[in-house]
């Protein structure tokens, strides 16, 4: 991965994140040091634990935050790393008393803590590759239950192994421990790791692969349709996050000086998850805030529970209070924090607010106040794309698709020339969307094939089809809602830069062309309907596609908006040099935009020709307009556009 190519904007994606990360780390480190200085040995321990937890939670955030896949298993990885570290770093003399029968002569091994950490990281990464493969195989995506089960299994399997493989782990009672005084001294190592980890986490989120992972998090299907292979982003995020978690686990074991099976199990999973969720799992700033808040809350509740109610000198010594506030209060606090945040603020305190992104926006606003940027300057400059399509046509031949007993497509075929705008119309349930779903790899055809030029694409995964130049929009709008307008387009542009050699339309030009320049920093979910439709078009165009497949681009639009859409589609398609296949059942729109029209009915093409020819065809009038025959199709097929 060459570094500069991974980032779209050095200032926004590298300089500011590093500054922000440094600030965050500084706040944690200086705040922690101040509290330690004021509070003595107990405070010192608390702060050390908090800083290590912070590393661990940022590790979790790298995976869960960027991919949206929920993992219960990261503490299982921590267990693997923790044991590997302990087995390697404890001196042989001590090992010979606790794990005399260690396999592979491990009780003779004595590595320095740094070496032991390195090996522990490698061992854990190997485990992560296996788990990552399993997750990919199961089709893990945001919210998938199978991923939760697989990762939960990891947590339990490592725990069972730790309990039962006593030759290696010392089992439940003794565990593995360092000799007293042989543990982590001072916090320098923690500081170094913490700073590095926060910087890495922020850079990863801004990098190309991180952005691709986030796109798949927002909408797995749309991401694949934009040429993103979700597995790549998820695997990268998993390996990076496991690396961080393994280092944090080694530090935790080295700091505390021992490890037992319950050390990295349910309780710690709960603790770290609560920390991550309370602050906001989609942001590093959020994750760190969560660590601080939960650490403080736990400490307070622990004090309430042990001394009765004593707070800044004010004490309330009543038996009732003593009875109410007792051991277990911290558990209640953790459970209630999780419960409360899920009910009231499921995305955590900060959502995906990021300190450096906020600084960046402020900085740029000040800049742009100094030197206002006229729209004309950025507008249609650089809209043009040149990707060599070799004059290839899209050919679809004899497709058939069965859904159970229902034949949605029945031998449909069509061709689109490279510079042509082709319309596909038909009544509801005619199979229009199914056809687009087949040629974008979402639905597998029962028979038939399709190709672009000489390249056979039948059966290829969605992201490969998109990379080959067939790029679609969706009937029911699938934007990356949490990303800004500009980032939606930029993302597709990055995929194009990697997979579609040639020159591509400039992101800003596309945004301006779609009439979205003024709202380019808004999140996609905040857009009005018409703007959202145009954004989806701009995003597809950013792929510099050979063919744009537009699924009902004007559904829900007024006539005036439809007319405007015709202009935008034609202009963008010409600019990026793409053929267009557009589906609609709005006859005015289709005739207004198309060079040629295919009419689909009951899964078959019943007419082809210019708009005038098709409109004159009596078969079309019967089937589509339903003038003589009534609404026979609506009753039969409903809205079969799945």
């Amino acid at each position, binding site marked *: 991965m060459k570094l500069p190519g991974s980032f779209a904007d050095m200032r926004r994606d590298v300089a500011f994140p590093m500054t922000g990360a440094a600030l965050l780390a500084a706040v944690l480190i200086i705040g922690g040091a101040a509290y330690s200085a004021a509070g003595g040995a107990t405070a010192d321990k608390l702060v050390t634990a908090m800083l290590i937890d912070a590393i661990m939670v940022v590790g979790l955030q790298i995976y869960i935050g960027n991919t949206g896949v929920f993992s219960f298993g990261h503490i299982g990885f921590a267990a693997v790393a923790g044991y590997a570290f302990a087995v390697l770093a404890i001196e042989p003399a001590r090992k010979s008393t606790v794990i005399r029968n260690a396999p592979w002569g491990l009780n003779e091994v004595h590595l320095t803590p740094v070496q032991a950490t390195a090996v522990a990281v490698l061992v854990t990464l190997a485990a992560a590759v296996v788990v990552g493969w399993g997750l990919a195989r199961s089709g893990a995506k945001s919210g998938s239950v199978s991923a939760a089960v*697989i990762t939960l299994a990891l947590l339990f399997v490592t725990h069972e192994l730790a309990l039962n493989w006593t030759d290696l782990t010392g089992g439940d009672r003794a565990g593995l421990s360092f000799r007293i005084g042989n543990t982590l001294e001072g916090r320098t190592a923690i500081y170094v790791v913490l700073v590095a980890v926060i910087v890495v986490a922020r850079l990863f989120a801004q990098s190309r692969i991180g952005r691709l992972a986030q796109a798949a998090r927002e909408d797995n299907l749309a991401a694949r349709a934009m040429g993103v292979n979700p597995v790549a982003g998820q695997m990268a995020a998993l390996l990076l996050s496991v690396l961080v978690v393994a280092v944090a686990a080694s530090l935790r074991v080295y700091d505390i000086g021992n490890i037992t099976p319950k050390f990295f199990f349910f309780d710690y999973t709960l603790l770290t998850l609560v920390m991550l969720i309370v602050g906001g799992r989609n942001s590093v700033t959020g994750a760190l805030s969560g660590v601080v808040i939960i650490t403080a809350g736990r400490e307070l509740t622990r004090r309430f529970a042990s001394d009765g109610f004593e707070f800044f000198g004010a004490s309330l010594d009543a038996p009732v209070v003593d009875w109410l506030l007792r051991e277990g209060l911290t558990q209640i606090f953790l459970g209630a924090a999780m419960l409360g945040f899920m009910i009231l603020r*499921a995305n955590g305190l900060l959502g995906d607010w990021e300190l450096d992104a906020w600084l960046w926006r402020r900085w740029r606003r000040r800049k742009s106040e100094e030197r206002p940027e006229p729209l004309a300057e950025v507008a249609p400059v650089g809209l043009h794309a040149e990707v060599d399509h070799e004059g290839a046509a899209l050919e679809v031949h004899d497709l058939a698709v069965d859904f159970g007993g229902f034949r949605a497509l029945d031998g449909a075929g069509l061709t689109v020339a490279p510079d042509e705008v082709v319309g596909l119309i038909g009544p509801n349930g005619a199979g229009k969307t199914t056809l687009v779903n087949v040629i974008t790899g979402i639905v597998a055809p029962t028979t038939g094939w399709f190709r672009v030029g000489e390249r056979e694409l039948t059966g290829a995964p969605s992201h490969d089809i998109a990379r080959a130049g067939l790029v679609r929009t969706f009937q029911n709008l699938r934007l990356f809602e949490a990303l800004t307008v500009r980032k939606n387009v930029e993302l597709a542009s990055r995929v194009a830069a990697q997979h579609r050699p040639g020159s591509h339309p400039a992101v800003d030009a596309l945004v301006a062309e779609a009439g979205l320049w003024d709202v380019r920093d808004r999140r996609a979910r905040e857009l009005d309907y018409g703007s959202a439709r145009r954004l989806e078009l701009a995003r597809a165009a950013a792929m510099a596609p050979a063919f744009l497949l537009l699924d009902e681009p004007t559904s829900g639009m007024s006539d005036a908006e439809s007319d405007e859409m015709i202009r935008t589609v034609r202009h963008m398609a010409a600019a990026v040099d793409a053929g267009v296949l557009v589906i609609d059942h709005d006859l005015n729109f289709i005739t207004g935009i198309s060079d040629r029209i295919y009419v689909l009915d009951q899964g078959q093409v019943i007419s082809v020709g210019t708009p005038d020819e098709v409109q004159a065809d009596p078969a079309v009038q019967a089937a589509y307009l339903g003038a003589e025959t009534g609404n026979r199709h609506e009753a039969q097929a409903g809205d079969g556009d799945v």
Partner: protein
Amino acid sequence: MTELAQNVIDGLGRGSIYALLALGIAVIFGVMHLLNFAHGELITVSGYVAYWVFSAGLSWYWIAPLVVLVSVGTALAIEQIAFRWVRGAADFTMLLTSFGVHFVVQALFFMYVSASVRNFDRPRWITNTFDIGPVTIEVFDVVVIVVTALTLAATAAVLQRTMFGLSLRAAAEDFDAARLMGVKSDRVIRGAFALSGVLAGIAAIFWLMRAGQTTPSAGITPMLKGVLAALIGGLGSLRGAVLGGLVLGLAEVLLRSRLPDGIAGLTDGVVFVLIALLFIFRPGGLITVSRAERV
């Protein structure tokens, strides 16, 4: 052969309890897409009820119906206090809510009741056995299997024959469509929790009879078994949940008796590996409830 027959009976006895728990979880998942990690709390609460009733000198004849009642009441209370506020939220918001409920309830018992184990007597007949040829059968297993079969039959009848059952199945199929057809979501969801409470209550009776004790964290194991069984069966499929429970029970018993001595202690670990493999290769579980994504 004899050993296999023995294992199958043991496995079915164990699996029946899992099936009851899994069915309760699947019913709730069906109507609101909540994977309920707090299901085990019904067992925890039931355990303390059993202990208190027993301490008052009453027998299992009193304990059993009370446990079911309390379990239903607890299920409804948890729904009112926590889950109703996250209806319709993202799946993981709900899952973590149930996680939160689990930890809060556990901590409440830990703080205000006792951290230590509470014992009560198991019914005397529980260890009785009888022989059929070379196979020794525990009376308890037979009772569990028979009662479970009756419970499942009754549940099936409720689901198939009553208006409530119809609403519930409709809601499980397509919640929004069911609401448009006039199904009252509130009533269906509460009904689903009540039903899951009944099923968990019956499972709790057997669980507690066998365990003879309870602790604040007693619900974790049954919760996990139930969740896993429901997942194995394919979440949301009611038949699948029952099947998943039986498969899990049989797998545990077979593995425990067949694994070589050295790793017999790892039975649970092996079961988890198998489940992970199942989900890697069949992400929908055994019986896949197809939910095509609309495009």
